[in-house]
């Protein structure tokens, strides 16, 4: 006999390492069966897509468990059950997100006209909206003043928050050495993270009211209110980023006879800049949708205001709020609702754009690799 013959496993002898296994198509068959059964059960109480999905999911989880238990054994069945529950949790978490995006796209896209993007609500009265509904003319008026306000106020809030937040984080990580001052700062930064946004708005309104007389409302007051909300986010994210810069790089720089502040500016911050940039973007995304503090600090106007230091200003969130709560035409609210949804879509797009910009920045500044 040759050696190869002895090595070939005999067809009669069973491999003792194998166990019963479900074929690959089995789980899809269970899924299909569950869908059919789910449809049947849900039609008993009146067919609805949501009911169908719910019943099918429950049946699928139970059936998957039982089928696996009968063929593959208890351990595999538990594994299948846990996996399916995790998938279910994932889908449940995804439903609101998809639903929000879907709704905003559905209701906002019709309003995304050049009229909406490039005109303000100046001179728009209920008469215009009534005409739109009665005669079918296009919806006039838009959120240009809101876009201008959002961009300017967020810009000034960023200009205030980033230096303050960055320098605070540099102090905490590089200079404080865990003294009482740094513990105090860390504590109050945590407290600031939790303050309600309307309180920040009241603070800014009261501060400027004390200095420039009561009811001072400008874009800059709103920027101060927003920076109160932004600073803690910038501090915390920058602090985390600076902490993960390896100490070896600081020591390498010191050993070359470089001063501490130069080391921080030229070695530590550049190494962490991509993380800092995305932290700042997240902070901007957090405040760009604020409504309450803007109502009490920037007021509300229908006309375009390019000056953040004088006169009231409108931002997209307050625009949405006003269009929904005080429609331009109280009798025909549809044009106002359409403008509000379009503004909501625009706001989401701006935040997405900011996230993209942050990724590009992170990629540009990231420590270089490759040979």
């Amino acid at each position, binding site marked *: 006999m040759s050696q190869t013959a002895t090595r070939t496993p005999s067809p009669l002898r069973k491999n003792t390492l194998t166990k019963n296994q479900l074929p690959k198509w089995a789980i899809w068959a269970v899924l299909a069966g569950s869908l059919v059964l789910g449809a049947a059960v849900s039609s008993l109480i009146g067919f609805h897509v949501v009911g169908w999905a719910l019943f099918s999911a429950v049946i699928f989880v139970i059936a998957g468990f039982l089928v696996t238990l009968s063929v593959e054994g208890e351990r595999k069945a538990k594994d299948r059950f846990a996996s399916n529950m995790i998938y279910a949790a994932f889908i449940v978490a995804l439903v609101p997100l998809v639903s929000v995006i879907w709704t905003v796209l559905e209701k906002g896209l019709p309003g995304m006209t050049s009229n909406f993007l490039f005109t303000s609500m100046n001179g728009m009265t209920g008469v215009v909206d009534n005409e739109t509904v009665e005669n079918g003319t296009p919806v006039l008026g838009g959120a240009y003043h809101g876009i201008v306000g959002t961009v300017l106020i967020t810009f000034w809030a960023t200009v205030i928050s980033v230096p303050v937040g960055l320098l605070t984080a540099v102090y905490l990580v590089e200079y404080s*050495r*865990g003294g009482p001052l740094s513990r105090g700062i860390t504590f109050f930064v945590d407290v600031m993270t939790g303050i309600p946004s309307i309180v920040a708005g009241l603070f800014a309104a009261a501060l400027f009211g004390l200095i420039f007389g009561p009811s001072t409302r400008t874009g800059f007051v709103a920027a101060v209110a927003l920076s109160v909300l932004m600073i803690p986010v910038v501090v915390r994210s920058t602090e985390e980023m600076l902490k993960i810069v*390896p100490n*070896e*790089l*600081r*020591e*390498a*720089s*010191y*050993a*070359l*006879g*470089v*001063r501490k502040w*130069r*080391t921080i500016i*030229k*070695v530590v911050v*550049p*190494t962490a800049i991509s993380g800092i940039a995305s932290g700042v973007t997240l902070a901007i995304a957090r405040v760009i949708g604020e409504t309450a503090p803007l109502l009490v600090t920037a007021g509300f106007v229908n006309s375009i205001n390019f000056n953040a230091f004088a006169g009231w200003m409108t931002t997209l969130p307050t625009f949405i709020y006003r269009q929904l709560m005080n429609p331009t035409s109280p009798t025909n609210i549809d044009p106002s609702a359409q403008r509000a949804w379009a503004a909501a879509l625009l706001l989401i797009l701006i935040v997405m754009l900011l996230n993209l910009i942050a990724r590009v920045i992170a990629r540009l*500044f990231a*420590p*270089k*690799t*490759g*040979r």
Partner: protein
Amino acid sequence: MSKRIDVNDLNVYYGNFRAVEGVNINIEARSVTAFIGPSGCGKSTFLRTLNRMHEVLPGARVEGEVLLDGENLYGPGVDPVTVRSQIGMVFQRPNPFPTMSIRDNVLAGVKLNNKRISKSDADALVEKSLTGANLWNEVKDRLDKPGSGLSGGQQQRLCIARAIAVSPQVILMDEPCSALDPISTLAIEDLIEELKTEYTVVIVTHNMQQAARVSDKTAFFNIAGTGKPGKLIEYNDTPTIFNNPSEKSTEDYVSGRFG
């Protein structure tokens, strides 16, 4: 362009803990001095006091004096930054700056201090330093590539090039080969041999063969027990330390009978 170091009665502390006790040592210019000893005996700590890197850590302080050609590094009014620009250091793990190219890493000591340097001078300095670190031929075609893309041994030689680019008097090396393979280690050891002609080199190593190969003089540090301060036990010419030490514990350590 190299200076001698004399240390008198040096005690090194981390907070209240005395890590190194009563060191007296004279390190000759243009020589290689190796520090050997078991882990935790304070040789790295002591090395870091020689260019005032020790005090970067919170709570760390030093008593005694370290004389660089007779000038006390710990005298009143001495700027640690000036000290460090004269006494360079190479660390255990290669640590090129990840945001910089190979060329910028070599020029880091100049550029980070915002000194003005013409392009031709910079090119000459890069070539001289990289040649000095035996790295020029390997990287001359990719000077603008990131330094972190080099192999570990090349990165360590890049760090040495970075250290010698600022023309120090003394180069301290803290276990420079412990993260490297034997071939890269050999390259670094050859380099140390060449550096000796121009610089004073002090090297900490766990590898006794390495100490025997590269150093002119060897200092043996030891520790009496956990929580006790480390001490300089014996300091002599390298052949004497390895072949005919006067202390029993040195003999035990170099012959591998330790602990």
